[in-house]
């Protein structure tokens, strides 16, 4: 029971409390580059999810055999292997999406989020916890990609997952699906998360002082 609780906690930590994008601000390159539509965000999120999960499992299984001095290179080679698998699978199964994401699939290797989790978590924890962590972080990254993609798609072309949302009178903000829109949307989202954090801290503080009085 306690173990279940811990694994669940790791999962929620990645998904929300320590969300890799909104709280830790990691993995920005693939995040901004492919989120001009929700579906691309989803594909990129799933690809990263798979790579993160696969590499977490391998790293945590082999952690006692990997020499400390060359661990980073080992992690990168493990990650690159999984990315190659994803790259070739997508090219075979979903060529349209593969073409759309283009060079950004191989660039998952350089995603600092994945290497960061290997170094900070998978190489120090049991298989079970590493899988929970990978699920949480992968889901958190997926959540960020899809929400950013959805916002940009809704504002930029007036659609969500390809379905038109507004009538013919809608004037799309083309800038939102172009690079500047990515920067600005993420900036505004981070602002919102900062604001949430600040509000939460205020409430915590208030509760703490009230407890003190009582």
């Amino acid at each position, binding site marked *: 029971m306690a173990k279940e609780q811990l694994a669940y906690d790791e999962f929620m930590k990645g998904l929300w409390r320590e969300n890799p994008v909104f709280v830790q601000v990691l993995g920005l390159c693939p995040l901004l*580059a492919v989120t001009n539509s929700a579906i691309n965000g989803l594909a990129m999120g799933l690809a990263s999810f798979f790579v993160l999960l696969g590499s977490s499992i391998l790293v945590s299984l082999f952690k006692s055999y990997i020499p400390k001095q060359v661990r980073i*290179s080992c992690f990168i080679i493990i990650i*690159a292997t999984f*990315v190659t698998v994803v790259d070739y699978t997508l090219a075979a199964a979903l060529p349209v999406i593969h073409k759309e994401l283009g*060079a950004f699939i*191989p660039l998952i290797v350089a995603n600092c989020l994945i290497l960061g989790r290997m170094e900070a978590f998978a190489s120090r924890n049991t298989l079970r916890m590493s899988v929970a962590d990978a699920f949480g972080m992968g889901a958190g990254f997926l959540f960020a990609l899809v929400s950013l993609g959805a916002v940009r798609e809704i504002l930029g072309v007036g659609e969500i997952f390809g379905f038109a949302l507004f009538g013919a009178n809608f004037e799309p903000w083309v800038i939102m699906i172009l690079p500047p829109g990515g*920067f*600005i949307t993420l900036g505004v989202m981070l602002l919102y998360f*900062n604001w949430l954090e*600040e509000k939460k801290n205020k409430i915590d503080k208030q509760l703490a002082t009230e407890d003190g009085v009582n």
Partner: protein
Amino acid sequence: MGDLGWIFISTLLINNFVLAYFLGLCPFLGVSNKLEVSFRLGLATIFVMVVTALCAWFLNTYVLIHAPYLRLISFIVVIASVVQLIEMAIKKTSPTLFRALGIFLPLITTNCAILGLAIFATNKGYGLWEGLVYALGAGMGFTLAIVLMAGMRQEVEKVNAMPKLIRGFAFNLIISGILSMAFMGFAGLFSSS
């Protein structure tokens, strides 16, 4: 201007690696708080990019035609080791250059702009000279973007009236958005010619 000139201008301004392709955002947002430091980081990036283009060309021409599925792994391993070797060589031969570039070299190697450069150059089918010019343009474009960003951030730091909430990443991203919008104007260079 010939093809090489266009490749250079296009990667320097129009398809700027940072502002149009979102490559190398980590150093762009992380190390851009001091003008001097970001300029040196830019120089080191140009250097690593040119080395990368050379390595990528060599691998593509002589090694990877036999095993294309090893592209990703070999790019990373070869580029990282070559940069490491050059770093050692610089340390021995020129301490001044090492002080200027040294600490950044290993950091840059794991940057997505470097791997991105190698992959883009391969996908576009560039030869040796085109690849080198492409690398030079991309590196200088990165330097330009990070120096502009650092300049703006230094000025913004002086403003005390800015609320605490907006300081930090959120604000930097919004400045980058505006900078990126300004760079989009360069797209007109191609259509007018």
